[in-house]
């Protein structure tokens, strides 16, 4: 094919059609929107179930409850969103509602007019004032004339101005289709108003016949029904570059969210007896064995709340408040048995008395009984050793694929662990409770935290998340480090939902 020919044929067609634009009918968008709505409602549950299948291995009943609540709220949110959209897309109806409100105002004012007309027999001036009040509220440009007929006319005209003004407002703010709708509805309302005006005129006719004629003449100048209807067909050509400049900024860079989660965890206080407690140091075996005990992680959990802020596309900052119930066991170290009164003490309780005798009067008494000779029993017995902390984490997050349905966040930060209580099982089976007031444990113990979070978008506002996290104390939990040391660490998998604002 001759290149110049190609140029004159294909290029001309391309030029003519490449950027051609033809406005699609409104029904297309309505159908698309209806489809999107349907997808939104139908898609939510199965998608979540799919994702759950992936994570089923780590699922817990409590997490399901949280997610269930999330879906419930999400569905609720979607419904309200739909309502809003309906309100927006059907603003024509809202306009009609306002019109009817304007009509009811007209009716009220008309009533006043009628009252005024009746009152004229008693007190002309009074009624004139009443009608004035009605008219001034709707139209400022009303002159004060002594004739009731004139006033009643003005009332109706004033009100029609008012309703026209309302229409004008809608026209400026609403879509063009709405203009068309309104303009077809106006004649009906205008027609409805004319009889009302006639009633007023009729009422006032007994007062002044000639004024009534003028009023009727003016009313008859509004025969909208007789006006010709002109239809105009429009072809709209878009220039996307220009349109694009008018786009509003959809969302600010900063996005906030709040979340709640439950974290089953493995908590290990890593409690160590560094040197043999006083009563254990008398014998070589107990002196040696008392430091050999180890901590074992127990099934623990944390209830977490988070508030976060998106700083940029990928980076975010979050903080929160969590309650951690950390359960563990301490195994080994043996215990002492008093030769005199058969009281016993394990290595931990004896060590606790050693670092703070005043905090445990009962234990102090007990330890006295070992001074005059005791038997060391080298038995590897487990004692429960449980902690409660209030945690305040501050973490930075880097999110990969933030726009996808499934995104991943790497988290890292610090956490202030506020010590609440420690429950230690004694050799005799009693629970020795240590609180923050006993000043044995540090009030705040700092820990480093890191984690990986999977975020699954349930809807535009709600996300479900699964977070694997690791926390490790950076300082000892005890105020005095002489004989005891505690450096808790934790592995956990948190299930949660979060809501974006």
């Amino acid at each position, binding site marked *: 094919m001759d290149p*110049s*020919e190609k140029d*004159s*044929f*294909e290029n*001309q*067609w*391309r*030029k*003519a*059609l*490449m*950027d*051609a*634009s*033809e*406005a*699609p*009918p409104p*029904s*297309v*968008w309505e*159908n*698309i*929107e209806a*489809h*999107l709505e349907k*997808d*939104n409602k139908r898609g939510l549950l199965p998608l979540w179930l799919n994702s759950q299948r992936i994570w089923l291995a780590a699922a817990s009943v409590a997490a399901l409850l949280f997610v269930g609540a999330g879906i419930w709220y999400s569905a609720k949110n979607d419904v309200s*969103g739909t309502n809003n*959209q309906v309100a927006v897309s059907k603003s024509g109806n809202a306009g009609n509602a306002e019109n009817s409100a304007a009509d009811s105002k007209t009716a009220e004012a008309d009533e006043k007019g009628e009252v005024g007309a009746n009152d004229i027999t008693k007190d002309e001036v009074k009624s004139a004032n009443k009608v004035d009040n009605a008219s001034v509220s709707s139209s400022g440009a009303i002159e004060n004339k002594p004739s009731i007929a004139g006033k009643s006319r003005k009332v109706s005209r004033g009100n029609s101005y008012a309703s026209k003004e309302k229409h004008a407002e809608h026209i400026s703010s609403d879509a063009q289709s709405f203009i068309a709708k309104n303009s077809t509805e106006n004649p009906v309302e205008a027609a409805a108003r004319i009889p009302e005006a006639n009633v007023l005129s009729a009422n006032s006719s007994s007062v002044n016949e000639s004024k009534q004629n003028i009023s009727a003449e003016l009313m008859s100048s509004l025969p909208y029904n007789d006006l010709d209807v002109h239809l105009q067909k429009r*072809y*709209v*050509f*878009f220039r*996307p570059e220009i*349109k*694009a*400049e008018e*786009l509003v*900024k*959809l*969302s600010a860079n900063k996005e906030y969210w709040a979340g709640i989660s439950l974290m089953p965890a493995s908590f290990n206080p890593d409690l160590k007896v560094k040197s043999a407690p006083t009563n254990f140091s008398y014998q070589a075996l107990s002196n040696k064995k008392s430091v050999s005990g180890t901590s074992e992680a127990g099934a623990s959990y944390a209830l977490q709340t988070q508030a976060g802020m998106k700083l940029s596309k990928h980076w975010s900052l979050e903080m929160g408040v969590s309650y951690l119930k950390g359960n563990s066991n301490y195994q080994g170290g043996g215990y002492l048995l008093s030769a005199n009164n058969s009281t016993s003490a394990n290595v931990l309780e004896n060590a606790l008395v050693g670092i703070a005798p005043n905090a445990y009067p009962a234990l102090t008494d007990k330890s006295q009984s070992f001074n005059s000779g005791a038997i060391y029993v080298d038995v590897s017995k487990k004692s429960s050793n449980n902690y409660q902390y209030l945690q305040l984490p501050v973490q930075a997050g880097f999110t990969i694929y933030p*726009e*996808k*349905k499934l995104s991943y966040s790497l988290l890292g930060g610090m956490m202030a662990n506020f010590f609440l209580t420690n429950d230690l099982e004694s050799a005799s089976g009693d629970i020795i409770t240590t609180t923050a007031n006993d000043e044995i444990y540090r009030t705040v113990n700092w820990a480093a935290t890191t984690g990986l979070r999977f975020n699954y978008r349930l*809807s*535009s506002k709600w996300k479900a998340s699964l977070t694997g996290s690791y926390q490790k104390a950076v300082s000892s939990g005890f105020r005095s480090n002489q004989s005891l040391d505690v450096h808790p660490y934790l592995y956990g998998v948190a299930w949660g939902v979060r809501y974006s604002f």
Partner: protein
Amino acid sequence: MTFNEQELVRGCKQRNRVAQKQLYDVFGGKLFAICLRYTKNRADAEDVLQDAFIKIYENIDSFRADSPIEYWLRSVVVNTALNHLRQQKYLKELDDIDVHHNGLADKEFTLGNFQLQQLLELIQELPTGCRTIFNLYAIEGYQHNEIAEKLGISEGTSKSQYSRARSLLQQKLNKEKRFEDGPVRKR
């Protein structure tokens, strides 16, 4: 991609309804014109546009922001239109045809005097195969081998169908000119 387009795409990726409507408002007109070119009538074009936008919103995550969104949107619409034609079995019996040049080719040929509506109607009046290949080759700028691959036909068929489309269009244009004896046909 401009900043506003990025915002728009981001909003659509977040399933933001305002963004989705804006995307439709900005590009709906152009994309509808494409649909009109590929289909026989407005009703079919509306169906294709609707399907295309649903695909666009559902697959917006796969759009990479390294090219203008309009290219991607156009390709989705063209593919949706082709699928539509396949479903309607319009493209099944595309055969190699013998085209005799009718000698109506006009070197000083100009479309400047025709309105968009007229041009769209001329294209819509073409047989479906000719119309599709004309659109892909002349407007979208695909090569014949690409079209052959896209439609599962031979390159020769693509060429001959295109020649026929071209010939038919020229006939129609000349006819329009003769009948109207003026630059613009009054509608």
